[in-house]
Structure formats: structure tokens, C-alpha cells
């Protein structure tokens, strides 16, 4: 069946576009470059996007996601559903059927045992597996027979497509990783750098944080693919340099993550050697409002905790005014160009999950001023800065060091200054900001500022776990060593209650409805999160490289097997 489709596809390609026709390994070498170099080829030990994308050329999950966010079988015959009996009626188990005659690149057979082993590998408490959430709520993974995998959950699971789905959770070869369980995981250097996989390529050489060399996998399930005989991923440098080697000098075929200013994008495109492609997932650049008081006068341990509500930002009118003063279309024009869209949502996509919330898209400076007046913030002493009860309207606005974010800071400072707000800016090294070191005052979790700006996203089209962030219990505080995802310390019983129903709802339309409501609760209803820009990931590919289909829901290299050389 599969073979026939491939033949038909190949035949069609032959008729329609001769250039697209290729046998395995006839198109020479494909060269990719990443601004950050690949550190390790085992996604379970890294979690860094660069490593996950690189390993996706070698390791494969049972099923992946298309650019539309739809599941597509990779190592299995079909996607299990209730209809085809793959998912049990009570939604507590899911059964996958492996393709027949599936082989690892070393020629041995892929069996259900490999999947069982992968589950054991990632759930071993001493292993420090970065994708442990993918295997949460699973009580057992069994090999029913050599090609049947049954995953059983502890209760009804609304979204059972987490384990073994997408480039984040691929199958490892049991034979290779058997000695690497738990605490031994990091010591298996060879296995971690050169894993045996089922993907279109296999690793032939690996230099840490520099180059991955790959060759076509002789045992790949489609005998006509991949079209390239070898592949190279070179890492390092910066986004601009990566874009340049594809778009201007033509040294490379594909560059991932080439986030550069719109003007430079245009001038590079004009060179005519390649093009930029953009994929929109759920990445949203946003301003987070602190609902607690970050004042340095408070004793350490009480600063930015629920004990002291924020003296200014606790008032929804102030938060709304700050949001209204921002013109999001200018932000997009300056910072992202085609790589961004203005948004008012925390969940901007996929379309079925996004709330119809666009009230913030037009700037309303007068409305914002009126709101502040209403809230009692007026400029009584004539210094241009509003005040209330003798206290000026001061706001400390922090973000990471990043040219686009500094431009955003400058623009938003201008708007807020026009509003009569005194803004102090701060930029922090991203390693410190996102590092989460409880000893540092500058982490985004500690939030020793009034507002802060960064981007976050949901890793799957279904945003359940992403929305879980805003529950009361997830607020970072001293008792949790300042860990937690509820950066704003947002806390309402209604949100927590509605979120609890999301976890138990299995009907897809109902889930989407709840997700939209939750999205509105943190955005337009409360203005706790002020979304600014829905960001895409911008990549570049050479005009001589065909078959690229950028994907925001899975690895960007998800269809690398179909890539070919345009002649």
C-alpha cells in the first residue's frame, strides 16, 4: 500500500515536474545551518529546539503533525481513533500498529519493545528526561505483539496523542540505549551523539556544538527517499549570518530561525538566491503585568508575593489603559514584518482554538487617558507624570537583551510617557532572565519589576497544558524556590474551576470553547496578560532546494525526506 502510493507519487512527480523526481541519494548533499549549534542528538536529554530539530532527521515518532496541526502517521499504519477502535471507548488506552517490515538504520527490525523501552527510558526518575510531560498519566506501555503497542492511562485522557507523537517524543532503539537507563543516561556519549533511528538520514559524524554529518539511511522505509545522499547541519554564528549564507552567498540550502529586521529581510530577498518562509504556531510576544508589589522596600521573601498586592497595577483600569496606549501594528512593522501579526490572544491559533478577540488592535490613546483619569491618576503637580495620593505613576519595564525587544521597549515607553506614565527600562541577559536561578533577582519568575515582556507558546495545537500555567497554585513564590509558570500571580477561583473542567472534557468542540473562555479570562477580561505580537518562526531556504514545507506544530524538518534539489 505504502509502496504503491510512493510509486504513484513518484510517477506523478515525473510527469508534472521532472526536477522533483529522484531516486535515493541522487541529489548530492543538502546543507543546513542553525544559529545555535547542535549539542546532542537525543531529544530526551536536551529539550533545546536546535537539538530536537536536528534529531528529527534521524529519530522518528509513531506519528507527527502536519503544518495544519493534523496528525499524520509516520511509523504506524494509521492514527488510532475511537472510530477505528484504536482508542478505547472510555478513553483510557490507545493502541498503535507499527508498519510491517520496519527497520532501524542498522538493519534490525523495529518492534513494539523499542517503544516500551522508550517509555521506561524517559520515565526513569534518575534520568532527568526533558520530555517527561509527554509520558505523564501513563500507567503502562505494553507490547501486545511485536508490532502492537498499547498505552494505558490512569484515567480518561482527553488528548491521548502525547506519548510517541511529534519530534519531541520519538522512539529510541532499545538495543542501543539499554545500558543507558536512569543515572547512566548522560554517560552514553556515543548513543546520545549518534543514535540509531528510522528517519531518512543516519548520523555519520558528530562534533559537539558544531557539525552533524549525515548520510541517507539505506533502510529507510521509502526506497525512493531521501533524494539527498548526505546532509550536514552546521551550527553557530547568529541569525543574520545564517540568513546571509542562504540568501546572499548561497553556501547553504536551509537556515533555521533567521529572525532579522524587516528591512534586512527585504534586501536579502532581493539578492534572488533564496526565500524566507514563516510558520505561525502559538508563539506570542506579550507584556505580563505583575499583580504583586515588587517594591525593593519590602523584605526579601515578601517582595513580589501575594502578600502585597501591586499598588498601581491591581487596578484593571490602569492595566487596560496601558494596553490601549499600544499600537500593535507599528510594533509588527518595526520588529517582525511578515514574521508577525498583531494579536490580543494568548492562544492565537490554530483557528479553531483562537478566541475572536480583537478589541486591542486599534490604539486608543484618548480612551486610555480617560481610563487613568477615572482611576484617579491625574497629573496634579504638572510635571507631566500622573500621580495619586502623592505617589507618581512609575513603572519598571524589564525584558531580555534582544534588539527587537529593545526597540519595543523604546516605542512602548514613548506611548506610555505620552499617557503620563514614568517608565524605567531594564534589559537582562536572557541566560539569567530565563535561567530560573532562585539566587538571582533578575529571573522572569521572580518578577522584581512592574511589567515584563517575553514570548511563550504552547507546544501542541491542543493548549491544555499551556493554559494550566495560570492556575493559582503555579505562582512562583519563595516556598516553591521561585519556580512556577504563573508569572503574573494571577489567581481567581473561576479560572481554576473552568480549567478543571477542561481536563475532563473530551468532546473537541467543547474543549475549544473552554479554551477560548480561559484565553479571554487572562486577556481581555482581566488584562493580566497583554499580548502584543503573534510571532512566526522565520527560516530561509535556497531557491535550489525544493519540497520545503515549514511546520510550526512539529519539527520544521518534519518532511526532510521529501526535500530535493531543484535543477
Amino acid at each position: 500500500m505504502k509502496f504503491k502510493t510512493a510509486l504513484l507519487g513518484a510517477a506523478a512527480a515525473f510527469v508534472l515536474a521532472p526536477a522533483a523526481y529522484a531516486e535515493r541519494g541522487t541529489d548530492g548533499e543538502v546543507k543546513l545551518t542553525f544559529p545555535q549549534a547542535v549539542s546532542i542528538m537525543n531529544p530526551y536529554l536536551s529539550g533545546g529546539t536546535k537539538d530536537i530539530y536536528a534529531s528529527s532527521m534521524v529519530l522518528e515518532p509513531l506519528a507527527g503533525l502536519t503544518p495544519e496541526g493534523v496528525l499524520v502517521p509516520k511509523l504506524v499504519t494509521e492514527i488510532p481513533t475511537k472510530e477505528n477502535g484504536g482508542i478505547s471507548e472510555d478513553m483510557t488506552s490507545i493502541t498503535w500498529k507499527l508498519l510491517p517490515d520496519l527497520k532501524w538504520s542498522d538493519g534490525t527490525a523495529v518492534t513494539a519493545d523499542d517503544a516500551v523501552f522508550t517509555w521506561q527510558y524517559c520515565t526513569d526518575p534518575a534520568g532527568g528526561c526533558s520530555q517527561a510531560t509527554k509520558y505523564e498519566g501513563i500507567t503502562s506501555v505494553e507490547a501486545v505483539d511485536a508490532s502492537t503497542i498499547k498505552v494505558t492511562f490512569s484515567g480518561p485522557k482527553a488528548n491521548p496523542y502525547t506519548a510517541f507523537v511529534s519530534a519531541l517524543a520519538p522512539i529510541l532503539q532499545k538495543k542501543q540505549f539499554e545500558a543507558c537507563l536512569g543515572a547512566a543516561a548522560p554517560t552514553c556519549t556515543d548513543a546520545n551523539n549518534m543514535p540509531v533511528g528510522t528517519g531518512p538520514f543516519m548520523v555519520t559524524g558528530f562534533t559537539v556544538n558544531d557539525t552533524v554529518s549525515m548520510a541517507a539511511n539505506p533502510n529507510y522505509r521509502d526506497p525512493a527517499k531521501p533524494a539527498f545522499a548526505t546532509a550536514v547541519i552546521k551550527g553557530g554564528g547568529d541569525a543574520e549570518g545564517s540568513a546571509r549564507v542562504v540568501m546572499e552567498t548561497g553556501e547553504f540550502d536551509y537556515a533555521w530561525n533567521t529572525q532579522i529586521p524587516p528591512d534586512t529581510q527585504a534586501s536579502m530577498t532581493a539578492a534572488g538566491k533564496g526565500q524566507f518562509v514563516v510558520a505561525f504556531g502559538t508563539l506570542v510576544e506579550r507584556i505580563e503585568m505583575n499583580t504583586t508589589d515588587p517594591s525593593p522596600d519590602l523584605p526579601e521573601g515578601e517582595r513580589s508575593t501575594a502578600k502585597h498586592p501591586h499598588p498601581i497595577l491591581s487596578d484593571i483600569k490602569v492595566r487596560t489603559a496601558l494596553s490601549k496606549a499600544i499600537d500593535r501594528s507599528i510594533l509588527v512593522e518595526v520588529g517582525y514584518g511578515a514574521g508577525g501579526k498583531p494579536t490580543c490572544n494568548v492562544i492565537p491559533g490554530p483557528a479553531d482554538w483562537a478566541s475572536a478577540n480583537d478589541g486591542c488592535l486599534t490604539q486608543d490613546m484618548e480612551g486610555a487617558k480617560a481610563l487613568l483619569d477615572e482611576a484617579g491618576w491625574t497629573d496634579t503637580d504638572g510635571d507631566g507624570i500622573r500621580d495619586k495620593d502623592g505617589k507618581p505613576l512609575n513603572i519598571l519595564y524589564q525584558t531580555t537583551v534582544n534588539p527587537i525587544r529593545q526597540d519595543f521597549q523604546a516605542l512602548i515607553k514613548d506611548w506610555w510617557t505620552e499617557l503620563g506614565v514614568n517608565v524605567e527600562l531594564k534589559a537582562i541577559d536572557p541566560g539569567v532572565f530565563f535561567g530560573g536561578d532562585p539566587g538571582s533577582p533578575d529571573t522572569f519568575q521572580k518578577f522584581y519589576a512592574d511589567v515584563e515582556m517575553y514570548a511563550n507558546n504552547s507546544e501542541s495545537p491542543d493548549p491544555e497544558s499551556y493554559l494550566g500555567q495560570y492556575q493559582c497554585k503555579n505562582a512562583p513564590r519563595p516556598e516553591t524556590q521561585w519556580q512556577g509558570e504563573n508569572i503574573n500571580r494571577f489567581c481567581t477561583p473561576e479560572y481554576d474551576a473552568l480549567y478543571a473542567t477542561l481536563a475532563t472534557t473530551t468532546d473537541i468542540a467543547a474543549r475549544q470553547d473552554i479554551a477560548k473562555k480561559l484565553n479571554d479570562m487572562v486577556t481581555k477580561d482581566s488584562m493580566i496578560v497583554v499580548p502584543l505580537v503573534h510571532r512566526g518562526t522565520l527560516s530561509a531556504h535556497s531557491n535550489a532546494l525544493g519540497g520545503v514545507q515549514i511546520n510550526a506544530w512539529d519539527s520544521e524538518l518534519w518532511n526532510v525526506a521529501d526535500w530535493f534539489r531543484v535543477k
Partner: protein
Amino acid sequence: MTDTSAASKPSGPLRDVWVQFRSHKGAMFGLITLSILIVAVMIGPYLWVPEKLSVAQAIKLKNQGPSFRFPLGTDQLGRDMLARMLLAGRISLAVGLVAMGIAIVFGTLIGVLAGYFRRLDGPLMRLTDMFLALPLIPLLLVMVMLFRDRIAGIIGPELGAFTLIVFAIGITSWMATARIVRGEVLTLKEREYVLAARSIGARPNRIILRHILPNVISPVMVAATLGVAEAIITESVLSFLGLGFPPDFPTWGRLLYDGLQYMQVYPERVVWPGLAISLTVLSVNYIGDGLRDALDPRIRGR
């Protein structure tokens, strides 16, 4: 030494130095350029006040070339580059000169002490080794983390950042000067005139001040020139790492760094800050040359 009339003038050796310095064309060029730069950044921001534009208006004027309205053009947010260059120059020049001063004074002091007093040589040079061996970026990260809030609390965020940066750059760039000065002193103290001075019972501090220091001036001057440039550049790296000034305070180094990604499309964005840094370094260098010649008694009066 041969010119006795110079010594007999009532105004003393300082005047001699000045006379000699003035006759040095390069030095005068350097002095004048540096003075112009300093004056420009001191009073420039008061003379050149850019028109007040709203964000929407400014964005329409982004990335413009030089014109009467914007003599140096505008940046990616439509801000006037001349105004930013002037403001940036204040910080950069101050950081460059002060940090260089700290590094030179400290480096020379350590170098002379280590070179002249054998007993101090070991400990001081091992200290130098240690500073050379410390990884710079973590050191700066730790210093900023420990002291930024405290200093900002005492003297305000802007001055606090300035003090911290100047100190951080100074404390991490004196080692080369110290090594070189020590090397020179080791040679100098075996010279005949120093031996002679010592044999007639001159005290160490007098020997150092009169005989040693004037003779180490030239390597120190070279180090100083390098130091200014390095301090200005280091500041830009610090800002880049988020350890420098708050992001709305431009500096030449930061303008250069920000302009980098626009270099191909709008080359003038990197030309202005680059030119300013180079001019500063060039003039400091010529002043150094002139000073060295003026302080050298063999050349003086020739």
C-alpha cells in the same frame, strides 16, 4: 639636560613640557579633536534639541539618510541620530577616559612596585596572574549581580551603572599595563643613572618619581591609547550582555552594535559611531605621542 636655559626659567619644567607639546603637530591635532568631541557632547544636547515627534510620525521617518532636518539621518525607530550620537558620546567618552585612567594608574602602581621592590614582586605578579586568569564574563556577571541594586539604591540607576561599569572595566584591564611596566622597571633599575642615584643615597620614592616613572611613560601611553578604545568597546559588549546601562541610554558602542544588522542597507548607521570611536582613539594616541616627546628630556629643547 644640555639646555640649561630651560631649567632657569621661573615657570619651571611644566612650561617646558607645554612648549614642546605645542610644537608637536599631531599632538595639537589630537588635543583639539578630543576637546571638540568633549565640548560637543557636553553642550551639544542643549544646542541640538530634536523636534518632538509622536511615535506614529517618527516611524514614518525611520532609516532616513542625512538631511537638513536630520544631519546624521534617523534610526530604525525614526529617532534623530545626531541627538543620539551626542548623548551616547557623553557616556562613552566618560567611560573610556575614566576606566582607562583607573586601569593605567592601578597598572602602573602595581608594575612599579613589583619591578622595583623585589619583595613585592612575587605576590603582586601572582595577583596579576590571577586576575589575568579569571574568566571575564562570569566575573562581570557576579559583580553586577552583587552590586548593581545596592549602588543604584545609593546614587541612582544611571550613576550607579556608570560607577559599576567604569570600575568593572578598570579592574579587569590593568594587568597588561602592570606586566609591561614591571618589565621596563626591571631593566631601568639596573641602568647606570639609577644605580648612581641609589649609591648617593636617594630614597626609593624619589628614585621612582624622578628616574623611573618618566622613563616608563612611553609604554604606558601606548597602553593608555589601547585602553580608551578597549574600554569603549568593552562597554558595548557589557550593554550587549545586559550588564551595562539601561537600554534607553545610547552609547557609541551600542549604536555601533545596533547598526550592525542594518550595515548593508543603511551603512551610515555604523559609520557615525565607528568614526566617533576611531577619532577619539586617534586623538588620544597623538596626545600620547606628543606627551612622550615632551616629557623626554633628550628630545625636549632640541
